[in-house]
């Protein structure tokens, strides 16, 4: 993941061994989430987000090496909280969200998962790469979005979250790998 975009979450030390239970739980969380997003089961997806969720996808820009930044200052594709994500999900549930009716065929490929101990037993940082394949209709070319993600997972103390280890997504920063997206819109989640 590009160094210059990071800094939103603490990521001390080296990644946990793949055999670590926390790695396995975080990895399972991400894979289970990918299936929810593929099937556009957004109500269930929302149930796995904390109330203080911050969901951020900055606009990447091409800058000279050494410029010190590679995102557009003060601009993002997504800069969401629970209210705005809830509205987006509610919109898809109406009968008039034309851009997803007929629905896209989606496949989120999630790989390169690394999980980090944060020092807080109820929080983990997970990094992953995601490739989204999106196909609409029959004659249109399909579209891809490639991105790195840095997530903060927080354990649901109540134990109500229906995920392995009761983890929930508290923060996600999405580093998209294009400055100009080759997709007609982001009526999807990454």
């Amino acid at each position: 993941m590009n160094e210059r975009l990071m800094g939103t979450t603490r990521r001390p030390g080296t990644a946990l061994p793949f055999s670590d239970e926390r790695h396995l739980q975080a990895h399972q969380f991400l894979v289970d989430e990918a299936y929810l997003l593929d099937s556009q089961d957004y109500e269930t997806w929302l149930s796995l987000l904390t109330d203080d969720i911050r969901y951020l996808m900055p606009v990447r820009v091409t800058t000279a090496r050494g410029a010190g930044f590679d995102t557009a200052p003060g601009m993002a594709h997504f800069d969401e909280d629970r209210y705005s994500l809830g509205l987006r999900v509610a919109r898809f549930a109406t009968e008039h969200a034309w851009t997803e009716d007929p629905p896209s065929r989606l496949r989120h490929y999630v790989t390169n998962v690394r999980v980090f101990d944060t020092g807080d037993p109820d929080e983990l940082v997970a990094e992953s790469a995601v490739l989204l394949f999106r196909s609409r209709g029959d004659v249109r070319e399909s579209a891809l979005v490639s991105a790195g993600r840095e997530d903060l997972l927080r354990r649901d103390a109540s134990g109500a979250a229906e995920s392995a280890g009761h983890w929930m997504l508290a923060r996600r920063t999405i580093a998209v790998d294009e400055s100009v997206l080759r997709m007609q819109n982001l009526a999807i989640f990454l």
Partner: protein
Amino acid sequence: MIPAHIYNDEELFGLERERVFGRSWVFVAHESEVPQPGDYVVRRVLDDSFIVARDEGGTVRAMFNMCLHRGMQVCRAEVGNASHFRCPYHGWIYRNDGKLTGLPFHREAYGGEEGFRRSEQTLLPAPSLDSYNGLIFISLDPQAPPLREYLGDFAFYLDFYTKQSPAGIELSGPQRWRIKANWKIGAENFAGDSYHTPQTHTSVVEIGLFREPKAAKRKEGALYWAQRGGGTTYKLPPGTFAERLRYVGYPDEMIERMRANWSPAQQRVIGEDGFMISAASVFPNLSLVHNWPKVTAGSDDEVLPFISLRQWQPISADETEVLSWFAVDAAAPEEFKKLSYKAYLMCFGSTGMFEQDDVENWVSITSTAAGSMARRLLLNNRMGLLHDDKPVTPPLAHFAGPGTAYVGYGEYNQRAMLALWADCLEQPVAAAARTELGRA
């Protein structure tokens, strides 16, 4: 009547390249994007790449991004700050005002100034450059009329978006993405398509994001056209200038600055006529939008306005790069700026809940316009006209703004956009002079 194939026709696109984009004023950047000496952004007019930079003296220039020697791009980043641009191919160096200051082995390779006159060379400047309210436009026509003259009466309306205080606007972004749609469709839609709002954007009303697009509300708005651009408005409930601006969510301190900054006629459009500007387009490919959604979970009355500028940058007959900026009055309170940015993200841009459905329509139109059947179909774009070309409803007799305004649905503005387009296509562009470099 509009031949459907104009929305996907390679031959016409070639003509547009030469005769629309070869002569029109095209937006490239806002001065707030390059606030400090050395700041630059790289923007295009179709295939031509320009470095828009503020030099050490504070002057903003647009320079053709091509080394005078072998044609390499001298700047391959899209944004940054630099005192000089060094060509990676042979090391020619240009200062941020375009002047050639470094030419390796000048004496050995060219015999010094005798062989190549380095001292007076600059990157090719944009043939014409001009600005209005900090909006920087360039034209590939060196004989282009002054920008203010080109904009004509539309400048009156542009002030609502870009001059809410003496500080002017500041831009963030742009979000950039490619859509498989012809560039004209977005420009026409923003110019005057209030008719699509109740249908295309049903969902944003259903979820409580926006209270206005309902069919009954939309058709009460005025559509205005003023020389080089036009737009749509919403009719607001009864009230004064200040009350109506409060209704869409402006705080009093911003309203006071608008009152001090806008002409009496500009204030009357809101205060007396009761119309609030919404979407608009300037020919050929710059659009603006001003809406006031509900940005936080609260009572239904808590709306907040945002402004977006967007450019429909043609890639080909069937593909457009959208550049979408968030704009806000530079003097606005920080909390307002923060919420206005959220309002923008929810409604427009790559993730906007309005825009998502617009683009779905435009991609579909473009795809269908490619075939032979589209060459047989003349789309009816006569909305608002009777069979004898008289308007269904007469233009407003009393409207404080310049140009012509109608209340109700009609495709007046789309016809005006396409009339300007057709005027361009009918007139060949004079061959541009060539620039020869370095010869003594």
